[in-house]
């Protein structure tokens, strides 16, 4: 961010102030609403009640588990794919780019409806095969694998773009060849020479995926699962203060997770933490 030195143009300050107002006022209003109850004065009661409400912890944990699994699936799928694309099949790049952008084009509602149809159709036709159990297992409410799969698809456009931008900044081919001429086998060269230089891109991809999963409502709701976002909506009708308090908290939780991820990924990256001239 630009430092506010004396030479900073006044319009910059203005833009910053307007933006800050735009983002902070609703946030501040939410917080005030939850802690300043008419007739009671300042109270943290709404926040205290969250912890007692049925389903808070299980749904939060479910969301976190889903997020972790989705990040893992997306990275395991996309990192090898994008690196391979750079190294051996640069001509396929536009194809992959289009395929990865498809989830942006297909409306989520159509996406979910299709998944729902498949989930209904599957057991009917496969009831006598072992695949029936697979269909049951992916819909286990304790950990719905089907949601992870759906989220992985939905995160593809963001993950692809983040990784592609990261790879663009690195001369993958030369790094791999340099590592190979230093005696590193191909997997080792990718692991030791390329991956560490993609740290920023991996972090970005993880960020976006995490934020997407924590905030996703449509798919989970329509398929009948109950992660955090669905839980918030479910309880919001009955208790006004608490539902806003939960939103504020989910915001804080997301921030906290992103900060943790940044802190975790930011360590041991001297190239980004040492002074750049």
């Amino acid at each position, binding site marked *: 961010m630009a430092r506010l030195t004396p030479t900073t143009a006044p319009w910059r300050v203005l833009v910053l102030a307007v933006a800050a107002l735009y983002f902070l006022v609703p946030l501040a209003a939410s917080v005030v609403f939850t802690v300043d109850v008419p007739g009671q004065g300042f109270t943290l009661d709404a926040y205290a009640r969250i912890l007692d409400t049925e389903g808070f912890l299980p749904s939060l944990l479910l969301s976190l588990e889903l997020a972790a699994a989705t990040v893992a699936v997306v990275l395991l799928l996309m990192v090898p794919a994008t690196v391979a694309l750079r190294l051996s099949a640069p001509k396929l790049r536009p194809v992959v780019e289009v395929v990865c952008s498809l989830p942006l084009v297909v409306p989520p509602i159509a996406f979910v409806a299709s998944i729902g149809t498949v989930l209904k159709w599957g057991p009917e036709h496969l009831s006598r095969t072992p695949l029936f159990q697979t269909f049951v297992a992916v819909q286990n409410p304790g950990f719905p694998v089907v949601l992870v799969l759906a989220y992985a698809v939905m995160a593809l456009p963001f993950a692809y773009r983040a990784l592609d931008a990261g790879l663009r900044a690195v001369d993958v081919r030369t790094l791999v*060849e*340099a590592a190979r*001429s*230093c*005696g590193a086998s191909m997997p080792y*060269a990718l692991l030791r*020479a390329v991956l560490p*230089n993609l740290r920023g891109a991996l972090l970005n991809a993880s960020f976006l995926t995490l934020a997407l999963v924590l905030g996703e409502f449509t798919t989970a709701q329509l398929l009948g699962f109950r992660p955090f976002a669905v839980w918030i909506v479910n309880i919001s009708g009955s208790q006004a203060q608490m539902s806003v308090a939960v939103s504020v908290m989910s915001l804080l939780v997301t921030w906290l997770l992103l900060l943790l991820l940044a802190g975790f990924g930011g360590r041991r990256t001297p*190239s980004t933490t040492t002074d750049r*001239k």
Partner: protein
Amino acid sequence: MTPAMTLTAPEKTAATAAATVELRSLRRSFGATTALDGLDLTVRPGELLALLGPSGCGKTTALRMLAGFETPDSGEILVDGKDITGVPAHRRDAGMVFQSYSLFPHLDAVDNVAFGLRMRKVRTAERRARAAELLDLVGLADKGGRFPHQLSGGQQQRVALARALALRPRVLLLDEPLSALDAKVRLTLREEIRRLQQELGITTLFITHDQEEALSMADRVAVMRAGRLEQIATPAELYARPATAFVAEFVGTMSRIPGRLRPAGASGTSGAASVEVLGRRLLVDGTPPEAAGTADAEVDVLVRPESVQVAADDAGPARVLATSFLGATVRLTVALPDGTRVKADLPAHEAAALTAGAAVRLSLPDRPVLVAPRTA
């Protein structure tokens, strides 16, 4: 600290066991383009061989094959007589310095140099010591903790050189390592690479499209054209006795002066073929071009600027077109009556009177000359 010149014992051992590299009828095509068209090349133990040629002549492909990054369609690569064509890149004993900056951005200079040693599972303390020693060798002992983005281009290529030498390779491959650097750094690094290469006695293949670089550094220079070897010779021989017209014109500056060939045995000649040029008869160096086998064929005589003599002569048929001051010499561009342009180098003091437009007379010294078929 040890001075930069001292070498450790293992390095001296490596020096005594320099490798011979042979490329045998290598062929490789990428789609419709043929990068290598039956390349044969032998690099002698401990020599620095420069591969010189215009871009697209296949020199980089040849080097990458030696490194193991490309596989030939046919032909074989031998190191000390052993076929390594099928050996993967990471098991070949070759260190490589790349044209683009290829240091690992996430590692500091020491760790970059020690990268290969880490792959070999050398203990941390030992590999850091060895890396520091190599950095010392390339004159960067105090820059070990710097990251690539904190180093200048020249320094980065030095680190890359140290990294390439870290595993004591039998062969050192340099793929235009200086082409991204500015002129001054290029000159010093050129000398440094040569010094190191001679100290270590390591067999080195150096790719360049800069003929000056090739001539000044190499023990021998191999000129490539369209995937084939055109000539391989010492720099002096390459310059003085180019085997083909292509080599003659690619290495150094050459002018073409029209002449008339008198085949061997023709009347008035003493056995050898000769050529009539600028009003006198000179012997032909080497074999005259086959296409011009018939008597009185029109040919071009190839001359270096320094062997063209220019004298001011008001009645002279030639005119000075332009002069360009090069320090010790002045390069004149002279137009012959038929419009042919010839470049000539004169000592600066002799050229003082010769300005553009002056009438001059050209002559050639009485030495055998190179002859090429007339180009349109």
